[in-house]
């Protein structure tokens, strides 16, 4: 395997007196898609925030193989006073790359909405803008924190396919946090099942299927059974 894009070891992460993470080691290869699967509050989002540099108070080390990292939050978090275009190019203030923004708008399927304000967008459309904003900085790794948990099931499937397509097209590695077993298995090359608090990685499931995948693939069903068994043993469900 080539050198990891991202390599992080968290020995311990506390919130006050509670320990949320212990002994987590995570490495991400270029173009790889990895999911962290676990219940809400198990510390998987915290792990993602540590990788993004939003949490700095932890014991461990972040060995990043260089390269840009971008974050897509659970909510779109668009600036309501900026247009879709300005939101996508947000990191470059007013001097954003217009051509690149226009291309991203087309790629996420929002052609013609460049001048729209966030209030005019549906939840799914707003999350497309958030993904485009994540891609704007040409990252090598896209971190996603339950990005599709707030949209309906059909929109979610569409957005999952869009995400895979964009990751493939731009050669981006994905690190995704989710509590949706199907989503984790459908999107990822590896699924890391998290323990309950204090959490660590309980099991790693490799999903050896090429993209595009069929959601009805029997292997996905078998792996889902496996993941559910693990989650049950961890007293998560």
């Amino acid at each position: 395997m080539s050198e990891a894009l991202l390599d992080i070891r968290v020995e311990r992460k506390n919130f006050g007196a509670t320990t949320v993470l212990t002994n987590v080691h995570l490495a991400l290869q270029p173009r790889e898609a990895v999911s962290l699967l676990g219940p809400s509050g198990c510390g998987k989002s915290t792990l993602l925030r540590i990788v993004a540099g939003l949490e700095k108070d932890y014991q461990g080390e972040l060995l990043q193989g260089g390269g840009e990292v971008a974050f897509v939050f659970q909510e779109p978090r668009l600036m309501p006073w900026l247009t879709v275009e300005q939101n996508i190019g947000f990191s470059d203030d007013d001097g954003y790359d217009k051509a690149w923004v226009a291309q991203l708008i087309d790629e996420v399927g929002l052609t013609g909405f460049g001048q729209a304000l966030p209030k005019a967008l549906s939840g799914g459309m707003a999350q497309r803008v958030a993904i485009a904003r994540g891609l704007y900085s040409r990252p090598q790794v896209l971190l996603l924190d339950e990005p599709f948990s707030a949209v309906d099931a059909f929109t979610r499937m569409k957005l999952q396919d869009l995400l895979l397509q964009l990751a493939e097209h731009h050669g981006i590695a994905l690190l995704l946090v989710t509590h949706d077993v199907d989503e984790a298995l459908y999107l990822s090359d590896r699924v890391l099942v998290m323990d309950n608090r204090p959490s660590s990685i309980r099991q790693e499931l490799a999903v050896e299927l090429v993209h595009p995948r069929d959601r009805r693939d029997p292997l996905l069903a078998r792996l889902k059974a496996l993941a559910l068994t693990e989650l049950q043993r961890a007293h998560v469900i």
Partner: protein
Amino acid sequence: MSSKSETLPVALAPTLTVQRSAWPRRLKGLALPVLILVILEVVVRIGWLPSYQMPAPSEIAVTLTDLAEGALWKHISASLLRVLLGFTIGAGLALVFAAWVGLSREAEAYLEPTFAGLRSIPSLAWVPLLLLWLGIDETSKIVLIAIGAFFPVYLNGVAAIRDIDRKLVEVGQMYGFSRTRLVRRILLPAALPGLFTGLRSGLSLAWMFLVAAELIAATKGLGYLLSDGRETSRPDIVLAAIIVLALLGKISDGLLAALEKRCLAWRDTFNGQGPEN
């Protein structure tokens, strides 16, 4: 004339359909004031109210036009200048302190208790002190107006900054924004709705304190006109001055409201329910 009126409806037709929703609303708003004016006029004319106490609306209108040909503009410009100066100074200082206290916990710890204490003093209690210190000329009036405008702007400003969605701020932190960039790109626009609320209530208080200042000691201004009307037993002058004050207050607030609407068109807010929708 008759041929003109025949062509009018055709020319107006397209604009009428556009404004159909706007006009009935405005007429609804006018109904109550017009009714009150008519009742007053009638009541005074038939002698139920003595006209030396409550002049008829038509009489006030005559007084107003008389004043408009004479000293009214002098009074208006004196008052307007005081309000503008006082409001600019008060609101400007309030914005600076609100930004400071809102952004820094340290500044909050040092300044907030003092401001909370000062705020609990009814602002008119400053009047005697201001007169003693600054005399009865312009300075004391402008300082009083500035004090009146300061607190609503300051309070709303701090609240607006502290109400900003942490999740939006986090987006800027993720991009590694510097403090000034965070303020310019996220904090300022996000706080703008609250800042406008503060500015508008500050402006209305500025008008209130103007009247207080001018009632106490002035040789020109609308407040002077009010007390002059009382001293010469001319309720029509008092009412004319009140009407001018109301108009000026409404116009100045309208200007701020228009600016607010322009700056905050992005807001996704509830606008009330009506029979139209």
